[in-house]
C-alpha cells in the first residue's frame, strides 16, 4: 500500500513537471523557475526514500505544501532581481529546495508530529497547497510585480488557499471523526449530519457492514480465545509437566552419560590392565617354557647321574667283592704262611737237634782221637749242613715274616679299602636313591611346569580373547557414552525447546486472557 502511494505520488509529480515544462516553453525564460519548482518535491522524495527508506503520504503532503510556498516565493524574489541566467537559477533552486526540504522534515517530526497524525489535517494541507500552486504560478509568471506586491499577493493567495482547503476538507473531517467515534465505541454509524451524500452514505454503509462483520468476527474470536485460553492453559500445564519430566529425563540421561563415561574409562582401564596381564601372562609362559627346557635338561642330567651312580655302585660292588675275595685269599695266604712257619719251626727244631747231635758226634769222635777223625769230619759236615739249614730256615722264616707282614699290611689296606668301598657302595646306593628321588621330583616338576605352561598358554589365549572383548565393550561403551551425550544434548535442547514452548504457552495463555478481555471489552 505504501509503495502504491509512492508510485502514485511519483507519477503525479512527473505529470506535474511535464505540464510545467509545456508552460515554460510556451512562456520562454521562466522555465528555470519551473524546473526549480519541480526539483523541490523530487529532491524531497529522493531524500525520504534514500534516507528514511520509506515515505508517508502525510509527510509528503506537508512537504509539498510548504515547499511549494517557499519555492514560489523564492522564484518570485529571484525573478524580481533579474537574475535570469539558467545555470544560476537551477543551482539556486536545487539548493533552496534541499534546504527547505530538510527544514520541513525536521519541522514535521519535531514541531507538529501530533498534528500530522490527523488524517484530516493532511487532506487540508494537500488541498490548500494545490490551490496555492494553481493560483500563484500564473500570477508570479505572468505579472512582473515588485517584491512587496509579490509577497503580499503570495500571502493573500496563501490565505485564500488555506481557507479553501479548510472549507473543502471540513466535511470529510467531520465524517471521519464520526466514523472514528463509531469504530471506537464499537457501534455502527447511524447518521452523518454534516454530509448526506450518496458517497458518504455508501461509505457509511460500507463501514457499518464492516463493523458488523468485525463484531461477528469478534464473537467468533471470543469463542476461539476461550478455547485458546483453555487449550493454552492445558498446554501450559502439560508443557510444564513435560518440561519437568524432560528435566528429570535430562538429569537421568546426564547421570547415564556420566555413568557411561565412567564405564568407558573403567573399561579402558580394565582393558589396559588386561593388556598388562596379557603381557605378564606371555612373559610367564615364556619363562615357564624356559623352566620346562631347564627341567628336561635337569631330568636328563639326573638320569645320566643316576646311570653313572648305578655304574659306580656296580663297580663298587664288584670292587667290594674283589677285595673280599683278595682278603680271603690273603687270609688263606696268612694261614699257609702260618703252616709254613710251623713247618719251619719243626724244621728248626730238627735242625737244632741235628746240629746238637752232630756236635755231640763230633765231640765223641774227637774224644776218640785220631781214630774218630773221619767220623768227626762227617759229624762236622752234618753240623755245618744243619747250620746252613738253620740259616736257610731263618732266611725263609724272615721272608715268610716279611710276606706275612706285607700280606697283613695288604690285608689291613684291603680291609680299609673294603670299608671305603663299602662306604662308597653305600654312598653310591644313597646317591642312586637321591638321583631317583631327584628324577622323580624333576619329573613331577616337569609335569607341573608342563601343566603350568599349558595353563599359561590357555590363560594367554583367554586373555587375548578377553582383551578383544573388552576392547569391543570399551568401543560400545564409548559409543554409548557418545550417544548418551548426544541424547543428553538433544534432551537438553528439547528441554530448552519445551521451556520455550512452555513460556510460549504461558504467553499464549496470557495473550488469550488478554484477547478475551479485549473481546469482552469490544462486546460491550
Amino acid at each position, binding site marked *: 500500500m505504501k509503495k502504491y502511494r509512492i508510485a502514485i505520488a511519483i507519477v503525479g509529480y512527473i505529470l506535474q513537471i511535464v505540464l510545467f515544462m509545456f508552460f515554460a516553453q510556451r512562456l520562454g525564460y521562466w522555465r528555470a523557475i519551473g524546473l526549480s519548482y519541480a526539483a523541490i518535491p523530487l529532491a524531497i522524495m529522493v531524500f525520504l526514500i534514500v534516507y528514511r527508506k520509506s515515505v508517508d503520504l502525510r509527510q509528503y503532503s506537508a512537504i509539498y505544501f510548504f515547499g511549494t510556498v517557499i519555492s514560489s516565493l523564492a522564484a518570485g524574489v529571484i525573478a524580481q532581481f533579474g537574475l535570469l541566467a539558467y545555470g544560476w537559477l537551477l543551482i539556486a533552486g536545487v539548493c533552496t529546495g534541499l534546504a527547505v526540504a530538510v527544514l520541513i522534515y525536521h519541522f514535521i517530526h519535531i514541531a507538529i508530529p501530533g498534528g500530522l497524525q490527523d488524517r484530516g489535517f493532511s487532506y487540508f494541507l494537500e488541498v490548500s497547497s494545490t490551490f496555492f500552486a494553481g493560483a500563484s504560478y500564473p500570477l508570479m509568471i505572468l505579472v512582473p510585480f515588485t517584491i512587496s506586491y509579490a509577497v503580499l499577493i503570495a500571502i493573500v493567495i496563501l490565505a485564500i488557499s488555506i481557507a479553501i482547503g479548510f472549507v473543502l476538507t471540513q466535511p470529510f473531517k467531520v465524517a471521519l471523526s464520526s466514523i472514528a467515534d463509531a469504530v471506537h465505541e464499537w457501534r455502527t454509524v447511524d447518521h452523518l449530519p454534516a454530509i448526506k451524500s450518496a458517497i458518504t452514505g455508501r461509505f457509511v454503509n460500507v463501514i457499518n457492514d464492516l463493523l458488523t462483520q468485525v463484531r461477528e468476527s469478534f464473537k467468533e474470536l471470543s469463542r476461539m480465545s476461550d478455547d485458546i485460553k483453555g487449550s493454552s492453559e492445558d498446554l501450559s500445564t502439560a508443557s510444564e509437566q513435560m518440561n519437568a519430566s524432560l528435566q528429570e529425563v535430562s538429569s537421568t540421561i546426564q547421570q547415564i552419560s556420566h555413568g557411561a563415561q565412567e564405564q568407558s574409562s573403567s573399561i579402558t582401564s580394565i582393558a589396559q590392565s588386561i593388556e598388562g596381564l596379557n603381557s605378564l601372562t606371555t612373559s610367564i609362559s615364556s619363562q615357564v617354557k624356559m623352566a620346562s627346557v631347564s627341567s628336561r635338561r635337569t631330568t636328563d642330567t639326573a638320569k645320566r647321574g643316576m646311570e653313572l651312580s648305578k655304574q659306580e655302585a656296580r663297580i663298587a660292588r664288584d670292587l667290594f667283592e674283589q677285595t673280599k675275595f683278595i682278603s680271603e685269599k690273603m687270609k688263606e695266604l696268612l694261614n699257609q704262611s702260618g703252616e709254613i712257619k710251623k713247618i719251619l719251626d719243626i724244621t728248626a727244631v730238627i735242625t737244632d737237634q741235628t746240629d746238637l747231635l752232630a756236635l755231640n758226634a763230633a*765231640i*765223641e769222635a*774227637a774224644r776218640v782221637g785220631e781214630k774218630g777223625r773221619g767220623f768227626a769230619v762227617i759229624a762236622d759236615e752234618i753240623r755245618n749242613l744243619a747250620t746252613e739249614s738253620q740259616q736257610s730256615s731263618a732266611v725263609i722264616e724272615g721272608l715268610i715274616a716279611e710276606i706275612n707282614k706285607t700280606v697283613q699290611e695288604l690285608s689291613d689296606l684291603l680291609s680299609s679299602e673294603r670299608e671305603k668301598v663299602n662306604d662308597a657302595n653305600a654312598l653310591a646306593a644313597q646317591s642312586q636313591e637321591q638321583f631317583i628321588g631327584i628324577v622323580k621330583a624333576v619329573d613331577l616338576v616337569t609335569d607341573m611346569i608342563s601343566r603350568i605352561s599349558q595353563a599359561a598358554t590357555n590363560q594367554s589365549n583367554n586373555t587375548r580373547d578377553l582383551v578383544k572383548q573388552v576392547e569391543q565393550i570399551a568401543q560400545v561403551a564409548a559409543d554409548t557414552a557418545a550417544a548418551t551425550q548426544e541424547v543428553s544434548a538433544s534432551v537438553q535442547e528439547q528441554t530448552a525447546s519445551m521451556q520455550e514452548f512452555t513460556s510460549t504457552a504461558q504467553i499464549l495463555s496470557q495473550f488469550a486472557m488478554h484477547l478475551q478481555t479485549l473481546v469482552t471489552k469490544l462486546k460491550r
Partner: protein
Amino acid sequence: MRYFLEFAIDRRKFAVPIEEVVEVARPGPIRPRAGRKKNIIGSFTLRRENISVVDLALVLKMKGQEQYEVMIAEIAGRRIGFRVDKVLGIIEHDVLKPVPDMVKSHRSLTGMIMRDDTVIPVVSLEKAVPRASPSAIRNKARTKSK
C-alpha cells in the same frame, strides 16, 4: 794235635779240652735248687738223669746271655752241666800257651790258644766245679751205686 770245644760267654770265646766234655745239651728251663752251692744255678733232667748245672759265666766272673747251652762233663764219676751262652764248635790246635800271671787267680783257666790273632782261654771244667768235701762226694757216689 789237640781238640778243643770252643764256646762263647758274653760274646767272648773260650775253649775246653774235648776230653772233658761228654756231650752238649740244650735243655729246657733249669730248675733252681735251694741251698745250692756257689756257681751252681740249678739242675735239669736229661734222659731221666738229674744233672746239676754250673754257670761258667759266674765262674769266669762274666755276665751270661739269656740263651744258653749246657756242656756236660763227667767229673768224679758224676755228670755235671756247665751253662754257656753258645757252643761254637770243635777246634784243633797244637800249641797251648800257658796262662799269664795276671790271670792266674782264675784256677779254672789252664792255658791259651792263639787262633786267627785271637786269644782263646782254655777252661778246665773239673777246676770250675766248686770244691766239695771228699766224704760228700763219696756218699753221693755210694748212694748212686745203690
